[in-house]
């Protein structure tokens, strides 16, 4: 790596040296420094022969004993380490610089450069490394310089490969395109923009290669093709001690331990380095686990009279992000009642907590998030209302898919690309409904036809990549409906689709709700108020982890009570068909940005962006107050808001 690559990376590391890197760094530094501090540790000469004292056990003068020629083992293992480490790190550095350059140039300029880089790497990679090393050493004779040359040639292709693929990835990012659009010279783009961004994977490869180089160096020296005797090296020590293994096991143990420790230290360092450089590594453990809903007894459970039309209810939900120190409240005081045959929309901007609320209702909260209060209740198909907290993990699985189903934004990633569409559908059906494969197939094809897929039987045997985004979302809907759930949660189901396809999917969802015999409730999560107006009966507007307004869709969107709802509607260009930027018109934008969950203003979370905020808003935390017309609003200024709207 060139200095340019290291500077920003290391400065960043030093600024916030991660705690997990301390132990491996100290260990690795010690193992590298100790051999080079050999003259300070022992005055023994590693190549002075003393035949009379051959194979003598450890003594005061020779703490690790003497070898088959009576040479001091401590001195040999230390000086041998110097040679092994020097050969390994010099060779790796050369391989790294040359390989990275090749990879960078190949990836950035493409064409013939790409051909040369990848083909050269392919050729070298074809040779088994140890054979290639043997061949070269036999041709050019053993010695440290030959070793360095061989190892560099052996390892540069792996650097070229990694640098190539990483640089290819980075080159396609917009910020590189932006530099090209600015007219920045290629050399500067390569060194200042691309190189720092591929430094992470390349430095991990550097550590891995150094460890491998030490092993190969030792192997070659063991075979007598590496460092020339009498100069010490770990491989040579093993080679010498091997003949006397039975009389003197210590002789073979010492270099082996040195070798193992060094490689272990390097690998340990690599592992931690990779975690540190990977931005996702920091989040740590428990990512795949799912938080359990908490028992309602803990939350101060009060028995509720169930209205028979309720299919699901969220009551006083509070979700915390469990961080060391103070937990951060992501969602607070969220209550929502979903009624049979109704479509309820949950709208809000990114980070408002709309998706988290729906995941909680599926019992699918990510591991780092804890439910610290509130109740989540669902009505099963049997008519019984269950509290998610009282269910076992097994029962929760039964509820999901059977009583509640979910579709997501990204139909590309929700289907497994290596399995046929039909296989995935049959699997989903059989997981919840005991039926033969043939019956499941028939049901799947019927469902595909129901969601408007032409030639359903042919599509059943096709793969997801053969379908367009709109068709995949139809397949996801068919799968979600396979167990006839009472409640379908749709999390931004049309956001990734083109507008004409989006309209078709919305229409499909509307038709399904109309045709569904036992009634299908929909929880529709979206940021697009236009779609919400199109599909939802009721709407709940979320801001910064709270529901700020709730009510029948037409009322809320026509005469919003909360200043945030009003501002949201005002800021949409489609609300102002008479305005045009060229005539000097501007949209009524909401100033500022939504607060982060750990930096919400006191009192009302919206007050610092609110056009009608008063002093009291900073002190009073407003409650969601009921209003006439089955509405509710969380704003102390709301009555005034109503007048404004009217």
């Amino acid at each position, binding site marked *: 790596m060139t200095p340019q690559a290291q500077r920003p990376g290391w400065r960043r590391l030093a600024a916030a040296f991660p705690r997990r890197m301390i132990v491996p760094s100290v260990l690795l530094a010690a193992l590298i420094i100790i051999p080079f501090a050999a003259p300070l540790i022992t005055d023994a000469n590693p190549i002075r022969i003393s035949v009379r004292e051959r194979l003598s056990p450890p003594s005061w003068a020779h703490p690790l004993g003497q070898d088959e020629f009576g040479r001091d083992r401590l001195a040999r293992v230390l000086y041998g380490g110097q040679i092994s480490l020097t050969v390994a790190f010099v060779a790796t550095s050369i391989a790294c610089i040359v390989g990275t350059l090749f990879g960078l140039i190949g990836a950035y300029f493409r064409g013939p450069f790409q051909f040369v880089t990848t083909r050269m790497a392919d050729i070298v990679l074809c040779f088994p490394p140890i054979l290639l090393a043997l061949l070269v050493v036999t041709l050019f004779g053993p010695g440290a310089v030959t070793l360095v040359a061989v190892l560099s040639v052996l390892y540069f292709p792996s650097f070229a490969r990694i640098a190539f693929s990483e640089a290819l990835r980075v080159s396609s990012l917009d910020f590189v395109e932006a530099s090209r659009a600015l007219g920045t010279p290629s050399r500067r783009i390569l060194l200042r923009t691309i190189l720092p961004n591929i430094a992470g994977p390349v430095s991990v490869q550097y550590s891995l290669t150094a460890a491998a180089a030490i092993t190969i160096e030792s192997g070659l020296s063991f075979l007598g093709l590496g460092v020339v005797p009498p100069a010490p090296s770990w491989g040579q020590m093993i080679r010498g001690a091997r003949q006397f293994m039975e009389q003197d096991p210590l002789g073979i143990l010492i270099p082996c331990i040195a070798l193992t420790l060094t490689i272990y230290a390097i690998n340990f360092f690599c592992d931690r380095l990779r975690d540190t450089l990977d931005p996702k590594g920091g989040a740590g453990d428990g990512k795949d686990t799912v938080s359990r809903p908490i028992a309602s007894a803990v939350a101060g459970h009060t028995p509720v009279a169930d209205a028979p039309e309720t299919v699901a209810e969220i009551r006083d939900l509070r979700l915390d992000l469990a961080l060391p120190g103070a937990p951060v409240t992501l969602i607070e005081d969220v209550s929502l009642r979903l009624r049979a045959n109704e479509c309820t929309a949950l709208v809000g901007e990114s980070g408002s907590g709309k998706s988290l609320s729906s995941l909680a209702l599926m019992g699918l909260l990510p591991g780092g998030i804890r439910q610290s209060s509130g109740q989540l209740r669902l009505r099963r198909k049997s008519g019984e209302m269950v509290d998610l907290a009282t269910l076992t993990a097994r029962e929760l699985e039964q509820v999901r898919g059977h009583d509640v189903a979910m579709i997501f934004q990204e139909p590309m990633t929700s289907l497994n690309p290596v399995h046929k569409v039909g296989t995935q559908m049959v699997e989903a059906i059989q997981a919840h409904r005991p039926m033969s494969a043939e019956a499941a197939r028939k049901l799947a094809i019927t469902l595909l036809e129901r969601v408007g897929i032409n030639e359903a039987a042919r599509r059943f045997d096709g793969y997801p990549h053969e379908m367009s985004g709109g068709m995949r979302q139809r397949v996801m809907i068919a799968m979600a409906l396979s167990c006839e759930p009472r409640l379908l949660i749709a999390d931004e189901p049309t956001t990734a689709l083109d507008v004409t396809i989006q309209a078709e999917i919305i229409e499909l969802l509307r038709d399904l709700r109309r045709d569904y015999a036992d009634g299908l409730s929909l929880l529709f999560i979206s940021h697009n108020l236009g779609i919400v107006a199109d599909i939802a009966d009721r709407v709940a507007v979320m801001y910064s982890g709270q529901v700020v307004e709730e009510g029948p869709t037409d009322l809320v969107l026509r005469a919003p009570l909360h200043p945030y709802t009003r501002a949201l509607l005002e800021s949409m260009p489609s609300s102002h068909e008479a305005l045009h930027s060229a005539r000097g018109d501007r949209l009524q934008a909401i100033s500022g*940005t939504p607060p982060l969950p750990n930096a919400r203003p006191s009192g009302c979370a919206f007050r610092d962006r609110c056009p009608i905020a008063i002093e009291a808003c900073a002190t009073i935390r407003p409650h969601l107050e009921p209003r006439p017309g089955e509405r509710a609003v969380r704003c102390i200024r709301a009555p005034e808001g109503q007048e404004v709207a009217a």
Partner: protein
Amino acid sequence: MTDMTPTRPLLEVRGLNKHYPAGKRGLFGRQMMQVLRDVSFDLYPGEVLGLVGESGSGKSTIGKAVLRLVDSQSQAMRFDGRELAGLPTEDLRRLRKDMQIIFQDPYASLDPRKTIRATLTEALDTHGLHRGAARQPRLVALMQMVGLNPAFLDRRPHEFSGGQRQRIGIARALAVEPRFIVADEAVSALDVSIQAQVLNLLADLRAKTGVSLLFISHDLSVVRFISDRVMVLYLGRVMEVGPADQVHFAPRHPYTAALVSAEPSLHKAPDRIRLTGEIPSPLNPPSGCVFRSRCPYALPACATAVPDLRPAGEGRMTACIRDDIL
């Protein structure tokens, strides 16, 4: 501009075509996918031209082709009277000062390892602008121009929200005082409340600096609000061009009409024009009019000849032989 003076266009594009190699390698080389077919348009100084279309319509490719970030074939592609195709590297590099781009993804468009100062400095250094003592005031002015606190100059992108990053992207484009900016879905990834801020910012900048914009978006209302004229694309072909309000409220092409009616809106009755089927693959587009396979008004004649883009009054053009019915 609404009162368009017949000045010389800043950007003239005639017969722009773009092919990508795609699909299986056959006996006679690779199959070619044509993403742009015979696209022609003019962009006048200070004008905002909106490009709308669904995915695969080629709208982003037009933006990259006129900036010469991708190769393309054209009869003519002139910026300020100079032919862009075949321009020597050094001349092109100098010309880039006048043509900039703003990207969609506020996360991918900034180098995560560079401070905002470094990002903006790169732009100024490349063209030798505001050197020495003039540098700091210029950086401060740029930050203020896009509504950011100049104290943030030494922060890295991860410390900013999506909307703030988009402002930084705009500041980078403005740093070299361009005469023309391609805004490629520049507000699509932003939340509604932030989107309005950035749209207002772009409108203000246009009014203040007179920069021309090629505003690419799939959101028709956004395009209508910001653009003087709108060009509708489908499968790499121009379907309709005309003044923004007219195209939006009184479309003359069946595709534009379908697109407008499909757009979710708070006020519209949900009686939309139904299109049949999916967008065809650009590898195998329909003969004649590319839209005929989904068009509710298609005639047998639509399959035989590619309709020309014909004048349709009030500075409008449409490529449809059935423009009588709309």
